[in-house]
C-alpha cells in the first residue's frame, strides 16, 4: 500500500527533447575547444623532445625569410615574446585613456546629444575588420609618419626588407616598427573596449550617483570618487579582453611589425625598431614555409609552440583579471 502511494507520488518529469537538443548542441563548441587545445599541444611536443626548450627560449632566431641559411638551433622566441610585451604595453597606454574618455563622454560628460552619437559611431567602428586597419597603416605611413621621415636619416635598425613586402608596396619605405603596430592595434581595440567600459559605467547604481549629487558634489567629483571606483571591476575585465585582442592579432602585426627577429632590440625599449610579436612570428613561419619550401617539422613545432605560449598568456591575463575583479567587487561591497 505504502509502496503504491510512493509510486503515485513520484512526479515523472515529462520527456523534454528541448533539453536533449540543447545539450547536444552544447557539446559542439566544447568539442571544438578541446580539439583546438589537443591540436596545439600535440603539435608542439617536438619542441620539448627534438629542439629542446633551451633553443626555443633564446634570443637567436633566424627568420628563414631574408635569405638566411637555415640553422637548426636558431629558433629562439625571446625577441618575439618581448615584442608581444612591448606592443601590449603600448596598446594599453593608448587604449585605456582614449576608451575611458570615450565612455565618459558617452555617458557622463555628454555635450548635448553628442554622447549618443559617440556610442553609435563606436558600434559602427567595432565592425571594421583588422585587414582594413592594416591597409590604413600604409596610409598612415604615407600621410603622418611619412612627412616626419622626409629628409631624416634613419639608423640601420629602422628599415628592413622583408621578402614579400618590398619597399615599393609600402610607399614610404618599410616603416615596420613596433610603435606603428601599437598604434594600429589600439585602433582595432578602442571601438571594442570603449563600449565595454561604457557598459561598466552604465551599471553603476543610480542611487549611488544621486546620493553623491545630493550631497553637493559636482559631476567630476562624482565620476572620480563614485562612478569610476564602482565601475572598476567591469573596467578591469574590459581592459583584459582588449589586451587579449592585442596579443592575439595576426594581420595587423604582420603588416606593421613583420615576421620575426633575431636578437633583442637595442636599447631594450626602442619602439622604433621592428620587434615583431609572437603571433606574427608564428604565422609568418607557417605561411612563408607552407607553400614554397615545405617546412621542416621543427619550424612547424615552433609555430604551434608560439600559439601555445599565446594561449597560456591569454589564460593568465583572464585569470588575473577575474581575480582582480572579484577582489575589487568585494572591496566595494564592504
Amino acid at each position, binding site marked *: 500500500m505504502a509502496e503504491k502511494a510512493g509510486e503515485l507520488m513520484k512526479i515523472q518529469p515529462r520527456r523534454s527533447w528541448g533539453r536533449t537538443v540543447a545539450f547536444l548542441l552544447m557539446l559542439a563548441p566544447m568539442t571544438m575547444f578541446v580539439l*583546438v587545445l589537443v591540436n*596545439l599541444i600535440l603539435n608542439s611536443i617536438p619542441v620539448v623532445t627534438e629542439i629542446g626548450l633551451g633553443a626555443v627560449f633564446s634570443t637567436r632566431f633566424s627568420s628563414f625569410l631574408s635569405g638566411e641559411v637555415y640553422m637548426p638551433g636558431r629558433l629562439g622566441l625571446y625577441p618575439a615574446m618581448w615584442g608581444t610585451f612591448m606592443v601590449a604595453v603600448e596598446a594599453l597606454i593608448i587604449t585605456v585613456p582614449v576608451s575611458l574618455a570615450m565612455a565618459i563622454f558617452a555617458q557622463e560628460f555628454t555635450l548635448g546629444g553628442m554622447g549618443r552619437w559617440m556610442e553609435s559611431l563606436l558600434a559602427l567602428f567595432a565592425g571594421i575588420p583588422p585587414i582594413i586597419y592594416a591597409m590604413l597603416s600604409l596610409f598612415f605611413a604615407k600621410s603622418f609618419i611619412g612627412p616626419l621621415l622626409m629628409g631624416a636619416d634613419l639608423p640601420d635598425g629602422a628599415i628592413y626588407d622583408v621578402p614579400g613586402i618590398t619597399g615599393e608596396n609600402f610607399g614610404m619605405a618599410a616603416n615596420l616598427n613596433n610603435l606603428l603596430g601599437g598604434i594600429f592595434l589600439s585602433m582595432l581595440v578602442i571601438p571594442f573596449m570603449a563600449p565595454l567600459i561604457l557598459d561598466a559605467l552604465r551599471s553603476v547604481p543610480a542611487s549611488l550617483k544621486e546620493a553623491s549629487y545630493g550631497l553637493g558634489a559636482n559631476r567630476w567629483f562624482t565620476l572620480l570618487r563614485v562612478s569610476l571606483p564602482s565601475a572598476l571591476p567591469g573596467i578591469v575585465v574590459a581592459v583584459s579582453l582588449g589586451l587579449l585582442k592585442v596579443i592575439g592579432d595576426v594581420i595587423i602585426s604582420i603588416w606593421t611589425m613583420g615576421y620575426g627577429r633575431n636578437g633583442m632590440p637595442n636599447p631594450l625599449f626602442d619602439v622604433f625598431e621592428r620587434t615583431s610579436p609572437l603571433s606574427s612570428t608564428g604565422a609568418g613561419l607557417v605561411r612563408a614555409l607552407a607553400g614554397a619550401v615545405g617546412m621542416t617539422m621543427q619550424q612547424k613545432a615552433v609555430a604551434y609552440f608560439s600559439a601555445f605560449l599565446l594561449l597560456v598568456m591569454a589564460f593568465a591575463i583572464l585569470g588575473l583579471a577575474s581575480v582582480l575583479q572579484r577582489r575589487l567587487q568585494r572591496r566595494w561591497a564592504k
Partner: protein
Amino acid sequence: MKIALREEKKTKAAAVPETADISGGALAVIVPALSLVTALSALLFMGLLLVDKSYDAYSLHMLGWLCGALLLLFLDVYRQHRRWDWRVALIGVLAIGSLLARLALPEYFSALQLNAAIHRSVVSMITLAVSALPGLSVSLYYLLGANPEAEDVSRYPLILTPIVLTLALYLVLMAQLFASGLTDVNWRVLTESYANHALTARTLIAGDWPTWETVRVLRIGILNHIAGTGLLMLLTTLISLPVGAGAGVFLSEYGKNTFGKVARFCVTSLRAISVFVLSLAAFSLAHIADGTPLENLFHGARFDGWAYQPTPGGSYLVASIVLSMLVIPVIARATEEGIRSLPQELREGSLALGASEDHTLLRIILPWSLPNIITGVLLGCIEAAGSVAVLLLIAGRGEFGVGIFKQVTSLAFLILDTYYGDPMFLEYMKGAQHFAGVLLLFITLSLGLITMFSRRWLTRRFRGGV
C-alpha cells in the same frame, strides 16, 4: 567600515569653508585667459606636428611660452587664494616641468643623435601634450571663477582632446582609403572572376585523332572573391546559428549544474583564444585527412583537365567550421542576454496555462530572444566577412570556382594577397587592391548599420514594442 571612516574624514575636511575672496580684479581674468590662449596654441602646434615635422622647431618656443604663462598663473592663483591645494601644486609642477623640458630637450636631442626627425617630433609632441592639456584645464577653471561648475566645464578639454585626435585619425585614414579606392573602380574587374592557370584541354580536329594541349587561362577580376565572401558568411551562419543558439539556451536554461559550469568555461575560453590559434587550427583541420579519399573535401579540389587534385589550402567548409568557433560564442552570448531579459511573468504564465517545457521554449523563450539572436548573427557575418587570420594559412585565389568543397578565398584575403602575393599577381590586381578594401569596408559598415537600425524594428516585431 574603513572606507566609511575615510569618507567621514573627507566630508569634515570639505566642511571647512574656503577662503573664497576672489578679489583679484582684472588680473584674475587676464592671467588665466593668457595661459588659456598659450595652452590652446601649444595644443594646436602639437596637432601640426602630427602633419609636418618641420614644426618641431617651434615646439621649444611653445614650451617656453607655456612655462611663462603657467608661472604667471601660479603666482596669480596663490596671490588670490593664499592657500595650498593640489591645483596650485599642479600648476607649479607643470610650470617647472615645462621649463625643465624646454632646457633639457635640445641637449637630449643633440646628445643622443637618435633617428633624428621622427624621434624628436614624437618627444616634442608628447611633452607639449603633457604640459598643455592640464594647463588648459586648470586655466579654464580659474577663468570661469573657480567654482564646482567651472570644474565640470574645465574637464571637457581633458576628455575631448583624445577623442578628437582618435576620431580624426580614423576619419582621415578612412577618407584616404575611400579616395584611393574609388579611383580604382573598374566594372570589368568587378564582373570577372580571377583565373590564372594551365588547363589540359582536348581538341578535336576533324579527321584526326583527338589531341591534348595545354591551354593557359588568364582572367583578371574579383567576382569570385566577392562570391566567396558571401558563401563564407552563409556557411558560417548555417553552422553557428543552431549551435550558438542551442548553446545559449543550454547555458541559461539548463546550465546550473557542474556540467553547465564546464560548458560555460569552454565557451568563454573560445572567446578568449586568439585568432592566431584559430588560424593554426584551420591549417590542421585542412591537413587532417591527408592521404585518405576525403582529402579533396578538406583541401578543396581543383580540376586540372584530367582529374580532381587537392589544393595545398583548405575548403570553404574547413574555413567556415573554424570561423564558427569565433561566431558561436557571440551568438550564444546574445541568446543568453535575450533570455535573461524575458520577464518572469511570461514564462510563468505559459507554464501555468499547462504548456510543456518544450512548448514554452519554442513559443515564448525563443521568439522573445530572437532580436538578440539576429543581432548576434549579423555580428557573426561581419566577423566572417572580415576575418583573414583564419584564412591566412589555407586560402588561395579562388581560381577554380566557388563551392563548399573548393579552395577558400574572400575579399579580405584578397587584400592581404595583393600586398604579400607574388609580383605577377600584384601587377594584375594593381587596379583592384584598394577597391577591394573599400568594398569590404562597405559590406561590414552596412551590416553594422543594419544591425543598429534593425534592433528597434525587431524588438517591436517580436516583443510587442516593449
